[in-house]
């Protein structure tokens, strides 16, 4: 199993860097992982808004939210999301939120 080191702690991830165990996630994980995802500087309020939204949706429904809904509910458009998370909503934002990789025909 591949591993990734963030802030002195080791985490098990899949081949593409998605956290394997959701409960190992912490805000420090997201902060430390940001640099690996091409985010410069500290995570801003808007980053956290999106991360928190994704995690809340996941807790309630067991999946990552659909992108359209995410944009609508957070008021951040897709362009803005890409500016915040250069790898995009699924490969960037969901990864920092500690979700596993989306599956199925999505």
């Amino acid at each position, binding site marked *: 199993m*591949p591993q990734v080191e963030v802030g002195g702690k080791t985490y098990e991830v*899949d*081949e*593409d860097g998605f956290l394997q165990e959701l409960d190992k996630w912490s805000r420090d994980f997201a902060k430390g992982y940001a640099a690996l995802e091409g985010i410069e500087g500290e995570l801003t309020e808007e980053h956290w808004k999106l991360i928190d939204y994704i995690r809340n949706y996941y807790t309630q*429904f*067991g*999946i*990552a939210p*659909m*992108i*359209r*809904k995410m944009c*609508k509910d957070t008021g951040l458009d*897709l362009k803005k999301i890409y500016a915040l998370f250069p790898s995009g909503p699924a490969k960037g934002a969901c990864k920092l939120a500690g979700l596993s*990789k*989306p*599956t*199925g*025909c*999505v």
Partner: protein
Amino acid sequence: MNKIIHIEDFSRSGGQLAQIDPAELMPLPPPYDKMSKPPIRQLTDEQRKRMDASLDGVVAIGLTPPANPEEEKAFIDKFLAGLEKLFTIENNWTFLQPLVHTLDYCVKCQICSDACPTYLASGRQEIYRPTMRAEILRRIISKYIKKENSLVRKFKASDIDLNWQTLARLAELAYRCTLCRRCAQVCLIGCDNALISREIRKIFSQQMGIAPKELHEKGAVQQLKVGSSTGMTPAALMNIIEFIEEEIEEKTGRKIKIPVDKKGADMLLIHNAGEFLAWPENLEAFAILLDAAGVDWTLSTEIAGYDSVNYGVWYDDFQFSRVAIRQSLAAKSLGVRKISLGECGHAHKAGIVVADRVLTGDLNIPRESILPLLEEIVISGRVKLDPSRNNFPVTLHDPCNMVRLMGIVAPQRRILKKICPQFREMTPHGVENYCCGGGSGFAIMQSTNFPDWRSAVSGRMKFKQILDAFHDVPGPEVKKYLCAPCSNCKGQFRDMFEYYGVWEKSGILYGGLVELIVNAMVDLKKPFIQWEWH
């Protein structure tokens, strides 16, 4: 020139059998003739230690080498036991006859190689020939199952040395064929080398528990457990349906209640669940159109009743049967007259064609494609349409399972000819189409460097076809629409378009068929298609 590779080479340990050389790949028109990045990401040394990539440096499964000779022997024995089962009717009630036919009658004329988009686009890599897998299998059967003596094998030039390495490469090679069956279509004696790929996958899955995670663990198994391969539970489904209803109202001013679990409806419509999460405009368009046309329909919230996918059709008969039965049970419990399948190609093959082998008695509910109904709505004039609303260049992708396999060729064309003034065909098209490159589960296989391979190699022929279809309007200033009535194909186009930077360079949006119909509806004030979601 790519190097000549012999079957004996498959058994050699160490090293990578084939190299994908960017200079040998089939050329693409500008600006895609000069790509700055290497076509396929190299694996790290650490990944190579864990996962076998000795076929072509690409990983679909990534087997771990055995720790000792005992483990290797057990692995080989298991494979042979599974192989033997393929040839008994009790264990292979699905495809025994075409399997035996293909193994016994292929004369290796190689007409099929010239029909295979993966082989051609790769620059004629020997390993991707459609006949390659069958020949490996044939030799294994001759030596280890039929145990033909060495003289006979020498005479037939059919020797092979079976070790772990041979099988690890064969397992990967079974996942370098998109099962598009263009090879079978051109074969003069009806051999189906795509079926061979599928049956090899079946041995690995059913006998050895080996399959890409996205197809099995996160796919079929998850679908049967929570309801959908996307992980979408019925509660999440209802949340999304609510969102879709809101969206419809905002876009059109219409308050439409999407029918869910409506007992006794005429038709249960099953979408690929990917639409709910990634392409909700497809569901919105269906809801708007069916409402306007007065169709008596419903969605289901039963397990598998709201996800038409059946990944087993690509790799495993057991998983296939389980899902097919659940889908039929969902329809039966609602008492609908028929099941209709939305825009998803493999679900057509699985649900309408292959499921006939599984569904008996009252489970054998009529199952059909939604396309003829869409045609009837458009041609009858039941819904008023204005083609000038679709006055942009449109081309059509033919999903292999709907078109080549099932012969659903004309409905989508009669629709587009009526509502899209700038519709143009690709060359070739219809039953002679090329696969999107994401067939047989590839579009959902997102791990390591496999997505690079399907954008650079298996999807390359289709990508060139799309660019050629728009050769008169190549630049991004003219917005163009690639109509792809299949979720799996759309997933491949999304990834491939991102890989090549297609929106920025060429301005091509991909989407479904029903969106174009709704975009032409006279009664809607605003255009339905939103070009910003490219």
